Structures are given as structure tokens and as C-alpha cells.
């Protein structure tokens, strides 16, 4: 689910950047470091705007300036039960690996409808019900997230397509 979240980030600036373009530089730094970051809990999709850059404080003994920036960002936090669209990255006899944006989701064989079978003899290998449903590398899927596990810098998730209106798009 997407949220607009207000967050705080502390950026330390080297004295060589003190000057007229300092603000610009801070914004660039913030965008570079935050956008696309995975905190383990959510993904930061986009930094919307700065609420407050605040006043820089020169650190005693270092000469560097510390800025506490308040900003708003669009974040995505995947939840159990959420339905997302994903793209298949590879298919294995044990299941299907997909990517829903930055989130890697695995669909185990048990969570694939029983009529969609593993077919290793085709090139590339695929899951198919021998009718109109073919799942191979690059297919778009709609899946439901069964479980989410945060890691240090990534989130792993388990998905299912064994429900109504799920499966290849």
C-alpha cells in the first residue's frame, strides 16, 4: 500500500559545499540517497517535497554542517493480503519468481492452481494449463501477497495465484 509519509533525515555537509548552491545540493543529496531505498520495512518510492530544511548547525571541531531535513515521500509498504501486479523473472519446478516493482515475490507450486502445470520441455520452460494461460519469463501476473518478511536491505514476499481473478494478465 502506498503512503505519503513525513520523514526526517540528517545530512552532513562538507564545508567545501557551503555557498549559493547549498540548498540545491542538499535536495540532490536527499533525492539520491532516499529515493529507491528499502528500509527493510518499506520502499521509498519518491521524495515529494521538503517541508523544512532547517538551519544548518556547524559541528564543533569538524567544520561540517549538519542539516535536519523534514521531507515528505511516497512510500510503499507491502502488506499481507495485498494484491499486486508483478512480472515473472524466472520459473522453476518449485515455483515462480516474480518482481512487483522492487519487491521480489515467490509463488510456490502449491499456490499455483493445480491445472497450471510445470512444463520443462518448452523453450523457455513455463507453467501452463495447455490452454490460454501460459506463465513464462516476462509474463505479467496478478498475485496476492501471503507473507512479507523484512530483511536488512530487502523485503521478501510470498504470493499466491490460486484464487479467483489472480494469475496471468
Amino acid at each position, binding site marked *: 500500500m502506498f503512503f505519503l509519509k513525513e520523514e526526517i533525515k540528517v545530512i552532513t555537509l562538507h564545508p567545501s559545499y557551503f555557498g549559493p548552491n547549498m540548498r540545491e545540493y542538499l535536495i540532490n543529496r536527499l533525492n539520491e540517497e532516499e529515493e529507491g531505498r528499502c528500509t527493510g520495512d518499506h520502499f521509498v518510492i519518491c521524495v515529494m517535497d521538503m517541508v523544512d530544511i532547517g538551519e544548518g548547525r556547524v559541528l564543533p571541531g569538524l567544520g561540517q554542517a549538519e542539516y535536519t531535513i523534514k521531507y515528505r515521500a511516497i512510500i510503499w509498504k507491502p502488506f499481507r493480503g495485498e494484491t499486486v501486479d508483478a512480472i515473472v523473472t524466472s520459473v522453476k519446478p*518449485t515455483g515462480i519468481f516474480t518482481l512487483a516493482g522492487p519487491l521480489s515475490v515467490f509463488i510456490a507450486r*502449491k499456490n499455483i492452481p493445480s491445472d497450471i502445470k510445470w512444463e520443462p520441455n518448452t523453450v*523457455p520452460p513455463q507453467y501452463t494449463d495447455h490452454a490460454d494461460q501460459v506463465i513464462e519469463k516476462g509474463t505479467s501476473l496478478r498475485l496476492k501477497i501471503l*507473507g512479507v518478511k523484512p530483511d536488512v536491505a530487502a523485503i521478501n514476499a*510470498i504470493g499466491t495465484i490460486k484464487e479467483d481473478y489472480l494469475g496471468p494478465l
Partner: protein
Amino acid sequence: MLLRLPPSLHYPITVTSLLKQPGDAVERDEALFWYVYQTTVTEGDGLGNKVEVKRRFPTKFESTVDGEIVQWKVAKGDVIDEPVDVLEIDEPCAHEVQFGGLCAECGKDMTESSYNTEETDVTRAPITMAHDNTTLTVSKREAARVEEDAKRRLLSNRKLSLVVDLDQTIIHATVDPTVGEWMQDKENPNYQALSDVRAFQLVDDGPGMRGCWYYVKLRPGLESFLENVSEMFELHIYTMGTRAYAQHIASIIDPDRKLFGDRILSRDESGSLTAKNLTRLFPVDTKMVVIIDDRGDVWRWCTNLIKVSPYDFFVGIGDINSSFLPKKQELGPPGKSGDKPAPKQPKGALEEHHVNGATAKKGDQTEVSALEQLVTMGGGDNPRLLQEQSDAQEESIMHQVEDRPLLQKQRELDAEDDAAESGSDSSSSVDDSQDLNKHRHHLLEDNDRELFDLEVRLEQVHRNFFDEYDRQKSRGLGGRVAALRGEKAPSKEKDVDLKLVPHVEHIMTHIKHRILGGVVLVFSGVLPLGTDTQNADISLWAKTFGVTISHKINMRTTHLVAGRNRTAKVREATRYPNLQIVTTQWLLDCLTQWKRLPEGPYLLPVHPEDRGEPISPGSKELAESSWLSSSDEATGGSLADEEDLSPPPGMDETSLVFYDEDQQAAVHEELKEFLGSDDESESDTDTPPPDKLPSPTKKRKRDEDESSDGDDEETESTGDEDDSLGSRLSQRIKRSYERSTGLKEVASAGVESSTKQAANDDTADAPAAQSQEASFQEPAEDDDELEREMMAAFEDDEEEEVANENG
């Protein structure tokens, strides 16, 4: 699932009441039954004294899993003395497939643990099975199921699995930017060989190597090889390169992904940076798996392995992805391998020229003792070491980019050519030099035939496997048909019976043992001192072919594999009539070609003095021809006509009569030359500490002094060594060209032949022959020659003895 009591309970325990009945649902940490246990505790008696008393404590036993109770295995009042199964619980999910710490089937977190956790659920799925993903793990049962499916499919398609290594097995890659320049330069002598080299750029490849270009040469015949082999095998890639690298290579050798699909395993997913493990891909059994790789040690010489000779197209580059692996060691004593010939001699040109052939094979033999290997492999877990190694990898890549070893080599080569040219210019006609000019030596050779042989071998394995399978099956069917009185056989026919599948390991072992079975080998001068002869790579490799390696020569010994001449073992071996003394090349060729080659061309030239009997007739000639032919064999027979010129060994027994002292000296001179690099290295290592072997060195010194005092001509030659050497060599080269036209390509052969001819034809040429010797800084007159020869022999003896003492 059967719930077992943990060993940490206070046994014996007595069950007092069961809280759940079969059919009840339980959750984790829910009480299952009450029990009492007895223990001694220290209590105060109210008067300040401490008393130890026995007490009984009632306790609840809590479930460690969710599920529905199926059956109790214990009853009220039971006394339990040891960990036993107490009840059977039907779990809704056995968590057999896990993804990144989640059960892939029910989505539960597997890493949770509490006071009640015996072992986390993660341990239920310990096997990493997917090629390209390490976050997916499966249980043994799931792995077996998947693998069984795969085997059924393979059997019905009549295929086996083949694990293919990339670097130096089917391709050779380098990052030397010189290749890119040569590919643009039509004038470059290497242009032809580089015409089908592919290049790609790896952008995200760690700091410092950003945007590094990789140049990839496919082993000749690769396309048809893969095409044909994929009919018989399902192909997997297993490489020590990075994922991105492997993907790029795969898209080069298999653009449609028809052959490999996404069955690509790189070092990112391998789990170990130092060893390859078949169970990583085939966790249950490896009955139907064949491996091709140029290194045996990383596979610990497992029986599924077909070792191929390393493909070394970009000379001197080696395997760019092997920094993590145990170091390759040179086979034989250093300086002997011929990879680094003395650059002053024009012979160097030939040696380098042929690195793809014989010399490379020698140099690339992996020689790592088992212990060292274990140590290095054990180090794989050490993060600091890993860091160091990855730094080393980066560094070596950087070095390659900056140092351009290929360019250096080609320059050396050109310089040698120039030297030879200018030499011949000074003394010969113009067209001769033009001829040379046209024939500017190219560094890179494109004459590898390994894949064609390999295909035949794989075919053989495949055929034998399915022959055996069919035999088993028909036998099994026959039995069943007899028993069941002709049940519908056709339907059975289609069914594949996994129990009947033979082991491909057994089949390969069988084939290999037929090749060199019964051979009892002794090594001499092949392995460095102190190496464990049983566990050296060459030994392990040979052993897979049924060879027995023994330490001492005895009546059972069939072959002595000698890395150099004139060792104590060679001398000893001559006393056994049925024992063949062969060069290392024989063994290597046998092992790579899967054939028991005739020993004839590989026989080691035995020095006449090493024989038990008086000077063996024609030993010199024998030495000459066999030596030449053995190097010939691998380098493509360019010296064939020269070999024909030299009379067969038995023929010149008569000519021996005419040998006077001078000629004999010349003969020895030549033998010395053959052993030259060897001697050189020895004297190099011996001379720095003169106190180690005082008498021979002193003696030699004195000899030198005497000779230089006594003979003006000799002094002159040493004095003008640098100046005169070039022109003399070129003279001899020229002479050799005049004699046999076929030799123009190979200058060094000309040198050898000219030396020989010089020695035989007239004694006037003897000093010229000795100018070669002068480069070893041992100018001496003919008479001293013999003496010095003997001293050298003594030295060898002493060394050998020391070696023997040291074990």
C-alpha cells in the same frame, strides 16, 4: 509429524495427564500434557542450615508446532527415561519450501524462535536448489521429488545432465585491451586468430573495474559441440565467474537460450568461492550427472568429472576468475615447464608460439597438495580472506588491463624475430630476410581440438549409460513378465523405472579403468619435493583411470614417469627390463585423450652413463629423436621431416665406432642442452649458497678458470659473448634453413639441428656449438667437458639422495 521430547528434559519423567485428545487442534506453545519429574534442591530448614531434599515437580509440556493431533504415543502413567516420540501431529504446512525466511506455502515467518524452540523452522528446508537464487530453500523430500521428476523427464528423453564449466573449458576470456586493438588492426599477425573473438562490457562489476571490456574466445568447434551434446545432455553452466559475467557468456554461446535455458550457476550463488559442489545442483543423487571442467581440484576429483585440458588461447592469461581458487602449481621443477624459456635464445619464440600445445598443458596442470587445498578451502569462510581474495581478483583484473601481458609477449616475440632477422640480414641474401618478414610470428594460435575429442567421449559415456539402462530394464521387465504372465508390457515400456537407473559414475569409472588399469606408476622429477605423491593432482587424476601410484620402483612397476632426465630413479628403472621410462607428456596425453597411447614416442632419452651396461648404442640418437617427437606430438608435427632425417635408434651402432673423444664431448654437450633449462635452474639455485655444495662448485670454477686461461679462443668467445652470440646463432639458423626448407617457420628447431649437425660434421664447428653453452657461462675445452659432465651427474646424484632422505 512426530513430536519428539527434547533431550533437555529432566528424565525420568512420569506422565500424569493428557490434556488433548486425537482430533484436537493445538497451537504452538499450547500445553499438551502434564508430567512430574524428581530432582534434588537445596532448601533452608528454617534454622539457617541448608538441606538437600528430593522433590517432585509437576510441569506442563508445550507443543512446538501447530496442527491437529493424530495419535498419542504415550499414555497416562508412563515413565519416560529418554527422548521418545510422544505424539503425532498433522501439520497444516510442513514448510518444505522456504523463500527468504518465509514459508513459501503458508507465508509464515520461519526465523521466529521462542523459549520453546528446539530448532527454528529454517532447518526444515536446508537445501538450496534453484540455480540463480539462494533465497529459495527446500526440504530433502521436496528436493527428492523435484529431482525425481527431472530424472523421469530426462530418461524419457534419453538424456543425461551435463555440468559445463566456462573459463578455459569451453571459452577463454581476457580483459587485456590489447585484444581489442588487435581486432581492429588488420595488419596484426594475430588478426586472423582473433576474428571470432567476442567482446562485452560489464558495467556493474565492483569498484575499480567499472566498464571493463571482456574479450571472449570460443573454443574451436564450440557451436557444433554444444549443438550435438545438447541432444544427449541437458546442459548446466557452473562457473566461478560473477552472475553478470556468466549471463553475458551464456548469451554469447547460446543466444536463444535453447541450450542452457536459465540453468546457470555463478559464484554469486555457489555458496563457496573455492570449491564447486555437485550437490548444490543435484542435492539428492548424482547418478545421471557428468561434469566437464579444466580443473579437478575444485571438484575434489569427484567421479562424475571429465577433466579436459585447459583452453589457453590468450597466452599467459590463465583463468581470469580463478583468484579465489587454490593456486595452480606448475608441474615439474620450475624453469623446466617451458612456459618461460630463456628469452635470449631464439628458441623462446617457438616455446611461446606453442604455448597452446605441449607447454601449456604442462604448465597448467594443477598441482596442489590435498592439505594445502583443504586449508585454502577452509579459508573460504573467513571473511577477511574473502575480502583479500576479492581484492586480489580486482587487482589481477586491473593488472591485466594496465600491464597488457599479451602486448608484452607479442613485443618479445617481435623483438626475437627482429633479432633473428637482423642477424640473417648481416650475413645472408635479401630474400631470406623478406621471407622471415612475411612470417612475423603471431602469438595466438587457433588450433585447439579438444572439444572434438570431448564430444566423442561424452557420446561414449551416454551410449554406455543407456545401453546399461536398457539392459537393466529389459531384464527387469523379463522377470516381471515371467512373474505376472504377460501383463500389458507396452504401457510398462513407457514407464521409466528409476530404480534401474545405473550410476553414470560407475560407467565412467569402468570406461576409464579399462584405459590405464593395471598400470603401476612411479614419478620421478615430476612433483616438487615434499609433495604427497598420492594426493597430488596428477596422481589423483591418474588414479581415476585405475592407475596405481607407488613410491618406489619394484618388479610390479610398469612405468616410470620422469619429468627430467638422469635422476636416481631413472637409473634404477633401467635395471628393470619391462619397465618403460616415459615423459610426463605420455601420462598427460593418455589422461586427456582417454586412450592408452603407445609409449614409443614418449620414451625418455636415457643417458648412456645411466644404463647398467656400457654405453647404450645410439642412445644419443634415440634421445634426439624421441625427445623431438614427444614435443612434436603436441605441437603439431612441424618437425616431422627433421625427425625423419635422424636415423632410427638401432641403425647406427656402427657409427658409434667412429666417435672420437671430441665427438663424444659434443654428444654430451647436446644432451646438456636438452637438459639445459633444467641444469640452468639448478645451477641458479645452487650457486647463491656456495657453502652448500662446496666441492663441485669450486671444481667447476677452477675448470672455468683453467679453460679461459688455456684457450684464447674460448676467452674471446666469452668476452664477446653478447656480440658474437647473435651472429653465430643467426649463422646457424641460416645454415639450418639451407639444409631443410620445411624448417623455416621454426627457428629454434634450426638451432638444435644445426648444433647436432655441427657436432657430427666437423670439429671446426664445435666452438660454434659451444657458444650456446657460453650462455650458461660454462666455457670449457673438450677434455674438460667429460669431467664437468661427470661432476654435474654427481651433483644430480647428491641432490637426488637428499631428496630421497627428505622423503
